[in-house]
């Protein structure tokens, strides 16, 4: 009934970092030698199995990429689309001088990526600045929620590019219009996820706040904000994804230095291999954005 009964649990298995068959087995007498040998054998089996698992985990994606390249190659044999080899050669040229500048519309791939990223950064940053506080308010106050709900429901399904003419009209410039389009299309996931996060704060945490009678600032900094953070980061991740999808389309229409306009430009030049390069660049950057935000989100997971 008392503490004395609960003995420490026996160790179930030795850690794999410590192979028992090492030379450092002092003090323990003869009977353990057999056990040590058995354990070494078990450790070996575990190591072999783990290596197989790792091999399988690498093999599958590699195989997938190979299948993709094969299909690409087969399609390219039919004519109009350049194959992997031709694209690779073109890529070497594109990336050989990524930061050249020949006038306002002919600049290196580095500038194009930078241009697209800075537009996304601006639009997305403004959206976060507006969307996250808005989400907090919508989540916290029922009246605000009821007020915002019809407007959000109405505006959210609108295709991002439909906002572009409004932006051009109001801001009288291609760049601000593109940023506006990013802003308006990436704000919704942040508003909605933040609001949901605020609503889902466990009552227990709020009771703690009430029992301790914490100040409003402490409630926000120690309870509301950390509790909502995971939801908020999900919203941010979705928003970045949307923003990156939209920027390419927006730039096709607005022009300027950027990946989207590059695609359109190379279509006009009929340099299809550069379009394919652009597609890869867009894909890889999107992947990196998504992945880095996942890493950040993981940092803020509490259990």
């Amino acid at each position, binding site marked *: *009934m*008392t*503490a004395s*009964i*609960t003995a420490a649990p026996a160790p179930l298995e030795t850690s794999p970092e410590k192979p028992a068959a090492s030379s450092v087995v002092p003090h323990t007498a003869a009977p353990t030698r057999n056990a040590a040998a058995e354990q070494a054998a078990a450790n070996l089996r575990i190591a072999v199995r783990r290596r197989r698992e790792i091999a399988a985990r690498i093999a599958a994606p590699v195989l997938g990429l190979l299948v993709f390249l094969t299909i690409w190659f087969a399609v390219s044999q039919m004519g109009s689309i350049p194959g992997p080899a031709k694209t690779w050669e073109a890529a070497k040229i594109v990336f050989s001088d990524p930061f050249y500048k020949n006038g306002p519309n002919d600049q290196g791939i580095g500038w194009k990526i930078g241009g697209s990223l800075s537009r996304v950064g601006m639009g997305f940053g403004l959206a976060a600045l507006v969307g996250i506080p808005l989400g907090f308010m919508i989540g916290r106050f029922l009246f605000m929620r009821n007020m915002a709900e019809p407007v959000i429901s109405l505006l959210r399904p609108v295709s991002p590019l439909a906002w572009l003419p409004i932006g051009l009209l109001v801001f009288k410039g291609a760049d601000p219009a593109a940023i506006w389009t990013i802003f308006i299309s990436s704000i919704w996931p942040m508003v909605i996820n933040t609001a949901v996060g605020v609503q889902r704060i466990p009552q*227990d*945490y709020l*009771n*703690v706040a*009430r*029992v*301790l*009678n*914490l100040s409003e600032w*402490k409630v926000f900094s*120690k*309870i509301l904000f*950390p*509790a909502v953070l995971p939801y908020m980061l999900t919203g941010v991740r979705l928003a970045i994804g949307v923003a990156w999808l939209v920027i390419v389309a927006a730039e096709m229409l607005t022009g300027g230095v950027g990946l989207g306009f590059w695609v359109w430009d190379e279509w006009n030049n009929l340099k299809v291999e550069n379009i394919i390069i652009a597609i890869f660049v867009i894909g890889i950057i999107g992947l990196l954005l998504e992945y880095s935000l996942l890493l950040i989100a993981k940092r803020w997971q*509490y*259990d």
Partner: protein
Amino acid sequence: MERYLSIEQAGMIFETRNGAFTALRDINLEIHKGEFVTLIGHSGCGKSTLLNLIAGLTDPTSGYLFLSGRQIAGPGPDRGVVFQNHSLLPWLTCFENIHLAVERVFAATESKAQLRERTARALDLVGLASASEKRPHEISGGMKQRVGIARALAMEPKVLLMDEPFGALDALTRARLQDELMRIVTATGSTVVMVTHDVDEAVLLADRVVMMTNGPAATIGEILSVDLPRPRERLAMASDPRYLAARKAVLEFLYQKQLKAA
């Protein structure tokens, strides 16, 4: 003894979609300073509701509650609450969880070093000095509950309110924490009101066991004084006739007088 915590004609009616629901009626109870009171009753008898009234988390729809002469209006740090599911903030370490409470109560009068010192002492009191920098998900359920107790006690509350604090723990851990709670309460002289559904827990820990009738419109059925000397030894109690008699009295109340169809 002086009137410390007193409840006068308290009642609680909830407004639900199906109309008014009377949870509690005519609750009258006087609790003295340093007394350990357990509330027991079948589930749905409103014992947690009563605890929430004392905590100030809900206001009674009738009657009054006083703590050392002042009417209870809203929650406050003079009543430390230990929740059933520990309610530690998962993004703070054990130390920070307690420090948050300590800071709230003592920041105005004490230096930062003193606050940290208090926090460390509270952790030490529940035997968790070594888990200070761990986050709640890194420690066991029993340890979390101990941090919860430390957090409540660190505020030096007038009353410690516990809502089935050990309900979610396994029997062995629960027994160990009960022993520890008795030691801590003896050491600190705390006044405790604890909700439980465990007859042994109710009798072993309490100076008085408050037994509640079944809801709806639950009220206090009987109050049993447990006149057993402290410290109480769990093993010795198991064969102590006074303990067994008290235990039987509670069982009779719950299973004869207030039998409830499951």
